[in-house]
Every structure is written in structure tokens, then in C-alpha cells.
């Protein structure tokens, strides 16, 4: 069931589109904001509300990396694995993070604190290697400062 707040926010988005379905991405972002991720039930709720099939909506939801269809930790680390960061030591940074948190790419720590995901170029190649933790960008990483960032 969508909460009153979620509905209200979705309704607001709906005013911007001529067709209900067109607001589906915004609606998914809204429930992700409230529920941290989009569960199967959450997805069905949105599909019903917008008058589309769950299958169709999931086709869209799974296309986007930033719509989480599984639970994620409080802090989502997105580490850039594109070419500049790769050259500048992405692999060491990644191993360091994995060692520190004990998780592989795509996994979440047992305490639900961190999720580690790869991302393509963050547009900050001149300060590579880089990563984001939630909305915060961290640059010029090395195996030492990355651990400090994580422990902060």
C-alpha cells in the first residue's frame, strides 16, 4: 500500500505528464526515497497506481542502476571503474574497501551499513580515482584515505 505521503508526491509528479505511465520513474524514486529500496510489493503498488503491469514497470525499474530492487545499506558506495580511475588505481581502492568491509561488489555488510556497487565515469577524471557515498563525491583516493573515509 502506498502511504498518503507517497501518493501525494506521486500525484504532484503526475501533473507534469500527459500520460500516467510516463511518471513511473519519478514514482519509483519516490518510494525508494521513503523505503530505501523498491521491493516487489512496492513495485506492484506503483504499477497498480499508474495503471500498468508489474512486468512492464519492472522492465523499467531494472534498467536503471539507481533504482534498487534489493535492500541496500545506509551508505551506498558507488566506485568508478571507468578508464581514468582504472589507470589511476581503481583496483587497489576496490580491494582495500572490500578488505575493510568484507563484502564483494554488489553486496551489503551484515550490519546494513554499506553496499558496494560499481559505477561508470563520475565525470571527475582529473581527480581520479573517485567514488561516491550516497550523494557525496570523494576524489584523489588512495588506499589510506579511502579507509579513513569509510571509518568516518
Amino acid at each position, binding site marked *: 500500500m502506498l502511504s498518503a505521503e507517497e501518493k501525494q508526491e506521486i500525484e504532484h509528479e503526475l501533473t507534469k505528464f500527459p500520460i500516467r505511465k510516463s511518471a513511473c520513474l519519478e514514482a519509483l524514486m519516490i518510494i525508494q526515497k521513503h523505503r530505501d529500496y523498491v521491493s516487489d510489493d512496492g513495485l506492484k503498488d506503483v504499477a497498480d497506481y499508474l495503471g500498468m503491469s508489474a512486468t512492464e514497470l519492472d*522492465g523499467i525499474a531494472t534498467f536503471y542502476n539507481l533504482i534498487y530492487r534489493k535492500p541496500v545499506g545506509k551508505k551506498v558506495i558507488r566506485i568508478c571503474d571507468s578508464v581514468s580511475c582504472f589507470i589511476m588505481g581503481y583496483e587497489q581502492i576496490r580491494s582495500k574497501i572490500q578488505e575493510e568491509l568484507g563484502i564483494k561488489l554488489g553486496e551489503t555488510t551484515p550490519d546494513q551499513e554499506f553496499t558496494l556497487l560499481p559505477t561508470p565515469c563520475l565525470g571527475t577524471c582529473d581527480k581520479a580515482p573517485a567514488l561516491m557515498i550516497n550523494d557525496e563525491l570523494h576524489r584523489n583516493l588512495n588506499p589510506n584515505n579511502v579507509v579513513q573515509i569509510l571509518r568516518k
Partner: protein
Amino acid sequence: MPTIFIDNKPYEVKEGQNVLHAAVSHGLNLPYFCWHPALGSVGSCRQCAVQCFKDENDTQGRMVMSCMTPATEGSRFSIEHPNAKSFRADVIEWMMINHPHDCPVCDEGGECHLQDMTVMTGHNKRRYRFKKRTFKNQNLGPNIHHEMNRCITCYRCVRFYRDVAGGEDLHAFSSADNAYFGRFEDGALESEFSGNLVEVCPTGVFTDKIFRASYTRKWDLQTAPSICQQCSLGCNMSPGERLGKIRRIQNRFNPDINGYFLCDKGRFGHQWVNNTPLPTKPISEITWPLNDDKSQVIGIASPKASLEANYALRKLVGAENFYDAQPKGDYLLAERVLEILEQYPETASVEDVRQADLVLVLGEDLTKTAPMLALAIRQNLYRHWQEKADKSKIPAWDDLAVRNAEHELPDVLYMVHNAPTKLDGLVSQRMSLDFEQISDWIPRIRAAKNPVIIAGTSLKSRPLIDLSKELRALAPQAKLCYVLPEVNSMGLALLKPKSLSDLKSPGVEAISLEPSLKSDVMAKVGDFALIDAFESELSKRAAIAFGCASFAESTGTVINNEGRAQRYYSVFERENKRPESWRILRDLGGFSWQNIDELCGDMGREFPVFEPFFAKAHHADFRVHGERISRQTLVASGRTAVNTHLSMHEPTPRVDQDSPLAYSMEGYHGDMPPDLASSYWRPGWNSVQALNALSHAPSGVKLLRRRSV
């Protein structure tokens, strides 16, 4: 017709085609995946690359996707150019990176487009050394098996299922290396057309689950051209048999009716043919339990039985005693439909529905009563989009561009119905069954160029049938299309049976071809003989029951809802062969017909309406280069081995008295009359895609003529 040059040879091509379509139509070996003649091009797989040249002096050229390139007058291409060749080799190599290479255990093996294309591009060595990505499969219900690892992400499945058939429960998920094609969660596919995935998917991702349960390789199936028995449209299909069992049904291309597709009822509704057959004895060995004077016995005809069977019954009992067992209301409705069609014989085919600029549906829920008409309406709306896109110079085959250019529902579908139907979302105007404001629609109908008025008998409503006639009278350019209850309802109506409700002498003895008699009918007749293929409640109550051959083991004629006569051919003979129902009736009546042609000769003289079909149908003595046409493939296996547990001697194939087909791998295999072709094959093309290089168009014969006054 434009001429294009491929590897410096001129080819005449159809106006408006793309280069790929033109090339494969000419039988050239140009590999492709995402293009399909009924789905158009999206240029997503990159397998169909060719080199394109400015003029004959251009030796370098540039690479283009042939499916996305119009075949315009004088344009020049090369399939053999080294750049194009090596590019295509790379593409197939990428596609095969994650492919499980499990052909030996894959249901698609032997009729797989991916196999064919891999061989065609010469990719025979694997260089990729890493792990393949693997997927979990879904349970998609009783008809379709899912094996996602085999996917090459051509997107044909969703383009058919969603875009063409309007299904909402199959989609592409995720992206790039993880792209997945399936449902949101496990569960039976909801579309009435899901079975087409089996033929549309070029790999073994979607395969026929019923076939899987008694699997046989394509080359071991014995096939014959057949007609779907499940509704009155008479879609063309090709059942496959091995060791006395029908294993599966595949589409048989007919541009006037089903085109490239079948509905699930037609494709999967065949296992009853494998039920316990009703045994039978030769007439000489039975004691006849009813009146010896057959003119004292009535005949109960069946719209599910062939024209030949119903005619033989009529001959046996006499026109006076030839009855139709439908309830009186249904009977009168059928009579009324025929009466209208004798006045307005220009009926609409399924293709006419695809082409119409206005489709009026009066009280039929087509998805249930004639599924392929529902699909035709969806295809019609898309065709309108294509026409609109054409004005912006978007070619009709440029599928994505057509769909992006146009989103508005064309003003085509007008529906009179109270209940919800699956076509509701496509309806442009709607009215309830009392059609009070129908006059509002008349200007629209009159203004239409080629409207089709669809009505039918499923609601048992005389006013709806009369309405269709009145509308037709107002719009002389309109074609009528009546959905009837059974495969041969039209054929039976043309034989003019009487209504059993009018039967004067209750308790009379009867011979019935109809296997499902209602209790009020049963109350009217006394002892009866039944001719049917399988054991049933009714066969147990009959004074005598004769087991006859089912449609899959006999040759016969059925007449579809538009009055088109079509022949289905026996696919196989059971070990204990049962005679066709008309042969049982022949023996009961002591008639002399030796084969179906002799019977049809008599029928044509008595009912001239059928004559044009019998004149055109291939008679049993028709031969191609002196040979019968083989029902088996050239490489059918086990011909000497399958029977060794019974006898060391190879059995002589039985001789088919009624058709020019042979129950053997020996016989003619080349180009043949389309009405007699039941599988498609060309060297290098083992999948259904072989059809694209053949110009097959079986047609049958439309029989209805205006009644001369």
C-alpha cells in the same frame, strides 16, 4: 520494381523493401536475427551488416545494416566484402560468448536459427576463456518452457508479445550483459498468442512445453498440411507426428488468414488426438442394430466433421432425413447468415481485417471466439501507424521509427458489446448491445474505403446479425465477416440440413456424426449409431459405435467462416488404422467411392457450389516429376530400426488413397504447390526462417457466389 546490385549481380526487388528482406527473399545467405517479416527492422543485433557502395566505381564502400537500408533503384551492396564478412563473424562471436552451446539437449536444436547463422558465418572456434553469465529460468505455465541462458538479446520476443500481440506480462529486464526476458514473477503467460514465441525466438529460450514432454527432433516428425479445427477461421497449420502420436503443431504460412502466427488454442490444443481411439470393425463383421432400411433412419450431421463425412451421411439417409442437431435458435441464425451471404457474398478474410480502414465488431468477443481476428485488429492499427509514418518518409519496415512517430489510437475499431473484452483499450467508439444510436455511426461507415463488419453467432442474437446486414446494405463497399461456432459450420450450412428441433417422429433411430449431443436432442432419438474418433459418454450409450479417423489421420475439406474451402491432409496412419467417417458411411450405404476424389465428384455434381474447389484441389493422382510428395524429411531416422521389436522386415509404407502425399521419406522434396507444403527447408536454413526465401501462399478457394434471382 527497383533493381539493386548485390555482389555485382542485379536483383529485382519489391517496392519499399529493405535490403535484408530483398536479399533473403532471393535466397541469398545473409545472416540476421532481430528482423522478422512480420515485426520489421530495429537494427539491434548488427548481424546483417553488408558493404554499401556509392556507384560501380566505388570500391571501398561503407558498412550498413542491410535491414535498416532501403532497397532503392540502382543501389549496390556486397555480402561477400571482407569487411562485412569479418564484422558479421565478430558479431556472432560476441553473441556466442554467453551461449551455453547445449544444442544436443536443446529443444531448438536442428531447427535453430542461431545454429544456422553460426554455421553460416563460419564461427567454429571459441576464443573467450572466461565464465559465462547464467540466469535462473521461470515457470511460464503449461505451454512454454523457458531457458534464458540461450538468449542472444535480439528482442524479438518482446517485440512480438508486447508490440504485436498486446501482451503485458512479458518484458525485457535489466540491460547490457544482464538483459533478461521473462515475467515479473513465475506464472503462466497470459497472452492468447504466447505460443508464437516458440517460432519467433530464434534460439531455444522459448520452446514448446507440450512438445518437450514427448520430444522428437524436427527431422523425425512426419508432417502434412492441415487446418486448425478449433474455430471457424480455419488457420493453416502443420501438425507433426512420430510413432503414432501427434507431438506438436506449428504455423503454416497463409497470407490470407493466419499469416505468420497461430493462437494458443490452435497451437497447443492437439493432445486429444492422442486419446484412446474408439475401436472399429469392418462393416462385414458387424450386425447392424438399427433399421435395415436406411431411409427410416435419420442422420445427425456435425459442423466439426468434414464436408465429405457430412455429404456421405446425407447421401445415406437422404436429404429428407439429414439433420443439424444445434438448438433451433442457433440453427436459424446459421441459416440467416447463409441467406445474407448469398446476397452479399464478398466476405472479409483475416487479411481483409488487417487492411480495413474501419472494423466494426458487433457483439463478438473475438479474443475468445476467433482469436486470430483479434490479433488481426491489433496488426491493423499498427498498419495505420505505418501509413501515417510513410507520410514522414519513414519506411513501413522501420519498426521503432514507426512506433516513435505515432502514438495516437487510429479511428478504426468500433464495437457493440456490453461485456469487457481484451480489445477494449483499442476501441475508438463503443455502443451497448441495444445499439440505439447506431445511426450516429452510419456516416463514418459510409465514408470508409474498405470497412469490415464483424458479427457472429456467439451471443445467439438475431438482431445483431440483422444489424450487420442493414449496415452492409448501407455501405456497398463493406465486407461482412461472420464468426461461426465450428471449423466446418459453413460447410454444413451449405449442405442444407434440416433442424432437429423440427423432427416430427420422436423416437426415430439415428446415425450421428456429432459427438456432443445435448440431452434434449437425446430425448428425441431412439437407438442410435455413432461415428466418432474417440471414446466418450455418448459412444458408451450408442447402440453401435464406429471408430473413425480423427482429422490428423484423414484427408478432408472444411469451409471456413468466409466460405473458403480448404483441405487438410492426413498426417499419419495409426497402427490399427481406422477408416475415415465417410468410408464407414460409404460401406453402410454400399456406395462405390474408392477415394475422396470420387466422392467429391458426386458432391460437386449435386452441389455445384463446391465444384470450383474440387476442380482446383490436388487430386490423389497428382504428382510432381512423377513422384508423390514426401511427408517425412530426407533424413528421418530409424526407418528400419523402429519396428525391429515387431519384425525384422522393413514395413512397406501404406499407400495414401486420398492425397498425393506419401507416408515415407521417399518422394518429392523440392518446390511444391503451397497447398501441399507442410514444412520449410532450404540448405543452410533449418528453422522456420527458411520460409522467408520461399514464396508460399496456400489459398484454398472462396466459394460463396451471389444467388441468381
